């Protein structure tokens, strides 16, 4: 019988990115006992990689901004599939959450007057992103981490949760292992917050790390929670494409915010060729106006490079498909050109985009102040995730909360840049607050021991009797990435997705025979094997949801249904685990906008 150690808490937080840390800080501030678990070392979660900034209508740079405009921008960006109440809460509370970070030690770039400076980003009407050069995420996670360690929160670094435990209908805790020694651990808890981030490892070309295997989505799904909007995977328009080993690494949208332009091999700024109706009123008429916008001219409209990510990504794919891409399968992103306009352009670029300068110099041997970058779309973010209540962040399972990228509802069919970091703060805080409240009303935690024992036995399977006939976990993951990249990628088609589902099914059968050499001590092969179930689950959810939506909207582009469908535009896709264990799909109406919300949207057309 495998044994395990118990670590009981009022509130268990799974994930130490921005959402998890903010939730833990909030829950601990109520006096609840809080434990936080994360797969990597503290401070290494995805949040650390965020570059561009955090969106909040502080109105420091343009006083015309306010939560109402931010709300309208988010709804439009999400193609009206966002949960309106979430978008409203997010826009209203983001400014306070950003100011609070400053009180905890974060230092954002400043305006002339010494206020927090804000920059332009795609889909945001006014300069709205508080930032620190292009390493905003580092500033944010370090601030939360350093504040959090003084709040009495217990941190279990390099521990992975593999299963949630339930007592009847209620959540009862979680089961996991520590990576260092492979020891099992049980976290009995009155409330559990899932803040595990995204699913990017399901695709071949991605900006995401090994951690992003959809664990939280899958843990919640298997515990009976509903997932929504899973078809909406954001392909960021600008990832590195060369050299091959860095393919997918992100090039921040901040490059375009600072005046960077996209060109094809014919030297044409192709983004001017296709401007969607929804944004026509807000887009620059010519390059001159676009440049003025990036330099802070309040009367100018944004250049088309700063249209929403779904649109920019598709335009790039079109250029490449039609033969106007570079030899490495990308297009040009040029920031060096601004030297025609700015006397000290080289210094300016290095100061505004230091880590991009560094990244290209070190990894591609390219000086971005002199020559254009080559970029192409990369898997970046999932809008879909665990369905939560807008106010409390509780999922459809009692006592199970979710926040951050693994939760859904704010971004609808497409997320605006910068709206994720603010999402983490706003809803992380709320999840912490309401989970602590939920826990306070519960008696001591108990959990069914047999669930923990079953989880332990399952976790050991890949290590039992390793043979060369067993399936290699890295190979399985890599094969799945090909299936998703080819079958359920940026451009989707019914027959290809059906084929992808069949292949996922075959991979699932192979995964049952996954086998790794070595023992339980820091065995990356074993860890990869245990992540497979999660990856397969989210991949299936993405494919089924995408198949269920025969239209093109936001991040979902269907070659066989290139237009929007007005009826589908009123529905969210829902997946859940049926009584027979099979994945089920249905469509629920998007909640009605209130009269007030309708008015705000009309005012901000």
């Amino acid at each position, binding site marked *: 019988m495998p044994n395990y150690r118990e670590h009981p808490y009022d509130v268990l937080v799974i994930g130490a990115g921005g959402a998890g840390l903010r939730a833990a800080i909030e829950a601990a501030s109520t006096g609840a006992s809080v434990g936080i678990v994360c797969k*990597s070392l503290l401070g290494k979660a995805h949040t650390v990689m965020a570059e561009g900034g955090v969106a909040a209508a502080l109105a420091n740079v343009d006083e015309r901004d306010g939560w109402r405009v931010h709300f309208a921008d988010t709804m439009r960006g999400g193609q009206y599939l966002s949960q309106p109440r979430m978008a409203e809460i997010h826009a209203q509370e983001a400014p306070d959450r950003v100011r609070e970070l400053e009180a905890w030690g974060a230092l954002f770039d400043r305006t002339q*007057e010494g206020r927090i400076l804000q920059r332009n980003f795609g889909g945001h009407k006014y300069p709205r992103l508080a930032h620190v050069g292009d390493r905003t995420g*580092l500033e944010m996670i370090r601030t939360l981490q350093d*504040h959090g360690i003084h709040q009495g929160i217990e941190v279990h670094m390099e521990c992975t949760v593999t299963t949630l435990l339930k007592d009847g209908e209620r959540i009862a805790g979680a089961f996991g292992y520590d990576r*260092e020694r492979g020891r099992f651990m049980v976290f009995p808890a009155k409330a559990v917050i899932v803040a595990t981030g995204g699913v990017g490892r399901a695709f071949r070309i991605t900006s995401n790390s090994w951690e992003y295997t959809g664990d939280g989505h899958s843990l919640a799904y298997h515990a009976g929670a509903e997932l929504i909007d899973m078809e909406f995977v954001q392909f960021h328009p600008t990832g590195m494409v060369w050299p091959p080993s860095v393919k997918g690494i992100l090039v921040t949208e901040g490059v375009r915010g600072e005046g960077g332009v996209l060109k094809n091999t014919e030297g044409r700024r192709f983004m001017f060729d296709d401007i969607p109706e929804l944004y026509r009123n807000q887009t620059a008429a010519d390059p001159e106006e676009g440049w003025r916008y990036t330099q802070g001219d309040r009367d100018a409209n944004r250049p088309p490079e700063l249209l929403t990510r779904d649109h920019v990504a598709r335009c790039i794919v079109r250029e490449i498909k039609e033969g106007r891409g570079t030899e490495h399968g990308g297009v040009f992103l040029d920031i060096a050109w601004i030297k025609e306009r700015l006397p000290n352009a080289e210094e300016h670029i290095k100061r505004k985009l230091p880590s991009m300068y*560094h990244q290209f110099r070190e990894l591609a041997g390219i000086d971005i102040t002199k020559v254009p970058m080559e970029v192409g779309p990369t898997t970046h973010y999932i809008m879909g995730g665990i369905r939560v209540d807008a106010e409390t962040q509780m999922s459809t399972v009692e006592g199970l909360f979710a926040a951050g990228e693994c939760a859904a509802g704010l971004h609808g069919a497409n997320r605006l840049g910068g709206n994720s970091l603010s999402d983490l703060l706003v809803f992380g805080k709320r999840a912490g607050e309401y989970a602590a409240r939920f826990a306070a009303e519960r008696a001591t935690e108990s959990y069914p021991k047999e669930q923990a024992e079953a989880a332990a036995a399952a976790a050991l399977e890949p290590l039992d009797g390793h043979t060369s006939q067993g399936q290699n976990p890295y190979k399985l993951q890599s094969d799945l990435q090909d299936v998703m990249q080819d079958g359920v990628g940026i451009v989707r088609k019914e027959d290809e997705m059906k084929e992808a589902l069949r292949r996922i099914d075959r991979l699932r059968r192979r995964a049952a025979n996954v086998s790794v050499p070595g023992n339980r001590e820091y065995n990356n092969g074993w860890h990869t094997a245990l992540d497979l179930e999660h990856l397969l689950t989210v991949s299936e959810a993405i494919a089924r949801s995408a198949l269920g939506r025969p239209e093109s909207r936001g991040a979902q582009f269907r070659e066989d249904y290139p237009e929007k469908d007005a009826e589908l535009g009123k529905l969210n896709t829902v997946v859940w685990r049926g009584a027979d264990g099979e994945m089920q799909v249905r469509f629920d109406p998007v909640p009605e906008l209130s009269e007030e919300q309708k008015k705000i949207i009309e005012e901000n057309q």
Partner: protein
Amino acid sequence: MVVNFRIWRGDASGGQLRDYSTSVTEGMVVLDAVHQIQAERANDLAVRWNCKAGKCGSCSAEVNGQPKLMCMTRMSDLDTSQSITIEPMRAFPPIRDLVTDVKWNFEAKKRIQKFTPRAPDNDDGTWNVDQGDVDRVQEFRKCIECFLCQDVCHVLREHHLHQRFIGPRLLVYSAALEMHPLDTADRTGDLRSRDGIGLCNITKCCTKVCPENITITDNAIIPLKERVVDRFYDPLRKLFRVFSG
């Protein structure tokens, strides 16, 4: 091109370098080669990484004896006619293969007095800060906690004075707090006694390896040393001046 790698395999009880050869293609970094070896031939090889872009500070190791981020070390910058040796950071206890026990850094950080801001300047709870004051500490705040500087510092690596010296990374952290335009706490007493700033003899090895190009010694440690001196020895000096007229 096929390149031979010698990777340290082992755990706390010991280990040795093992040979693995793998094919290296254009643009590859050391971490790619390690991953390729792991996927093809050493499934249980232990290695840390996250961002693959020099942003998270997870993949620290010693490549041909040099402390490096594996994700930012391009194969084309190494002499591939020879074997490439990859070892874990030596200043920390080994856990397994390339993974070391860096928990001490997190523990030691906890003891440093936390950020303590002055009262807000504005009614809405915000502060006015000059960009110039922000720029001064931004350099320190770039730190990605890769601990490569801790790895090379002889006070930790050779003399193992972890209990008496917090090391360059945490001196950078202290500098970021001390020079934070809003912070009011005084950490000089701790720096002098508990944190052992006097043990640093300014060899600048830490600065040389910092992947974020933080000028650790000149910009963080020396100014902190000066603060300590001002705080603890200045009155004496003043007294001396009084007597000597």
